[in-house]
């Protein structure tokens, strides 16, 4: 018992230190957002600002059209999350519950996607979007226009599916008892109905987990919007933060204020979905 307690104390200390390491940059970002540039550049470092001022927030938010940037990020994130949850869970259900020819090979191919770094697929994906037929002035063969470049569709379509999401859903649905399917079949429900009336309503935990992971990934994504958008009215919040990087250096005070505001929605989202998130990870066997 004593030994167990000792281990517990060591464990708490280690985890507290690890948490501190994670928290320090966030705390510094928050504190820096209230400092003046002179204070940031001062050779003497103080964690707390000399005077708390919201000027940086005001200045940051009046540089550029942040309403548009937040709207863009929100539209892209919401659409990508909703569609990806739908597609991933349907595909996960199919792999978990249906027996069809080539299922194993298909799943194997899908798993290859998990091992592929996004940089490898970025250019091919960009080309598909740029040569999307009948979009942005393109003809049937995908030439003549700009395709889906600089559009919401171009930003969202490549994000709505993902190997990780399908894998997670498959694992989750495999834990469901077979008797559920049998009962549904006896009641005359086809596979679509079984999925929508039995599986989907019981998937809150995994959908919350996936939704949260997807939302954070899409909201924080920098590279894809960077290459897919080229006008200010399509700019996302992450791209907008680069406005504080000028020829004469980085305006750290405004950059940090902007970063706090940009991180806030995801912080709130995580707090709200935290319970489901942990539950989802546990029940899908990915702990």
């Amino acid at each position, binding site marked *: 018992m004593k030994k167990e307690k000792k281990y517990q104390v060591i464990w708490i200390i280690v985890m507290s230190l690890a948490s501190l390491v994670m928290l320090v940059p966030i705390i510094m970002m928050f504190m820096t957002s209230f400092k003046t540039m002179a204070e940031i550049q001062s050779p003497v470092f103080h964690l707390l600002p000399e005077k708390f001022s919201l000027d940086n927030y005001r200045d940051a938010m009046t540089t*550029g059209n942040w309403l548009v940037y937040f709207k863009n990020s929100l539209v892209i994130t919401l659409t990508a999350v909703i569609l990806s949850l739908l597609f991933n869970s349907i595909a996960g259900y199919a792999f978990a519950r249906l027996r069809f*020819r080539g299922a194993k090979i298909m799943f194997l191919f899908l798993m290859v996607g998990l091992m592929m770094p996004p940089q490898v697929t*970025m250019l*091919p994906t960009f080309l598909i979007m*740029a040569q999307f037929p009948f979009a942005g002035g393109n003809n049937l063969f995908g030439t003549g226009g700009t395709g889906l470049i600089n559009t919401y569709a171009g930003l969202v379509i490549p994000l709505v599916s993902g190997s990780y999401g399908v894998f997670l859903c498959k694992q989750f649905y495999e834990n469901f008892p077979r008797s559920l399917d049998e009962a549904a079949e006896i009641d005359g429900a086809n596979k679509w109905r079984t999925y929508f009336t039995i599986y989907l309503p019981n998937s809150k935990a995994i959908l919350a987990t996936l939704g949260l992971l997807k939302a954070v990934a899409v909201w924080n994504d920098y*590279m894809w919007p960077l290459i897919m958008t080229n006008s200010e009215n399509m700019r996302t919040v992450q791209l907008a933060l680069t406005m504080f990087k000028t*020829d*004469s250096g980085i305006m750290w005070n405004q950059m940090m204020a902007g970063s706090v505001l940009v991180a806030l929605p995801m912080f709130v989202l995580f707090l709200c979905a935290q319970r489901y998130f942990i539950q989802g990870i546990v029940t899908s066997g990915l702990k």
Partner: protein
Amino acid sequence: MKFRKVMCALLGTAMILGMAGCGNKGTEELVSKDETAGEAESAEEGQESDSGDAASGEKVKLTFLRAGTDAEKKAFWDKVIADFEAANPDIEIEYQECSYGDDFETKLNTGFASGTAPDVIDFTLASMGVRVPLGQYAALDEFTADWDGTDDYMESALNLGKIGGKLYGIATQPDVRLLIYNKELFEQAGLDPNSPPATWDELEEYHKKLVKKEGDNVVQTGLGIPSSGTAQQHYLTIFALANGEKNLVDEDNNTVLCNSEKTIEAAEFLKKLEDEGIIPWDSSSSDNNPFGSGLAAMTFANTTDFANWNSGALAGKIAMASPLKKEKQATFCGMGFMFMSNETPHKEEAWRFIEYASSADVAWTRYEMMGVPPVRESLKDKYIAENPENNSVIYESVACGVGSPKVAYSNAVFNAVDDAMERIAYGVEDPKTALDKAAQEIQKEIDNQ
């Protein structure tokens, strides 16, 4: 059963689409364009497209991508584009911007790889060494026969845009390193604030007088030489150029010059100053420069840094000095250029935009809105008259300025020399050993090209 079929079809289609993306036409086009430098194809497309647009009377739409995302420059480009479109109603400019560094490179790489590169690009001198050999920037000589800039541009600025005798970039924005000094600290050290150092010997003498120590600690230095960071190579370049060296690399024949006798002599001189006493700083950001906090009496910095310091705590206390001289008077001068994509089907229109954006009128607007020194001889007197004390020094510095070597391996040069200078600054190696090692690294990179 039906559901299974639908699912199979959906999953199969998704996989086929995924695989199609990995081997589609665009990638093949990229290879072919890189191999042929895109010239023939672009020219044909250009003719077809131009004639098509002219026949239909439609506006030609050009995309213009500029490096940087700051609001001040955007306001300038908004004005230039609006004025250009008003004067050229047959052309519409789609403005795009992206922050400097890797982001800009990624954006350009993706554009060129997918055939969606911007028609006109505002970017740096360093990009020429990489993108000209890849055939991504178009040679502009065919358009410059009637261009007034040929005779009016500063020779140094015009030459910076050339590789192998061909003109690829039109210089618009000099980024010159000026010798800046603190008059107040000069006076405190008993030096004449109106007589900054002009030679290496004078610099050494001033530096010694300006260094202040408390015990072993240096509390004030003369020349604020960086001890680490990405701008150390600029300092070495400045002194190597003044010592009569061509550059860190001879771009004409790929000869490494960073360990030449003259460059080593320059590095030894810097080391001598460092041994007198410096305040270590990381030159990756000018925010770290001890000159800004009054701890260094002299530094090399650009006009933007000067303006920032002169509007803050150092207002009225700082001044600019002419470039130092040993064998010759020289300094480092980066440059922003207007480039034309080799892939554009609208070369004629793209040139009209570049010509307009580099005209004397726009150069003056650029100066008025952003303080960028003009690179046209016709504006010299007007420019100097605006602020005789500072602008004469800036103009003189730009005129004798030399930029980074325009080679595909320029990043290797920067990294190797920065590392060497850091080892020298911290006394890990003597200048000759460190620069010989840097030269070996650069040579390896050249051999791998």
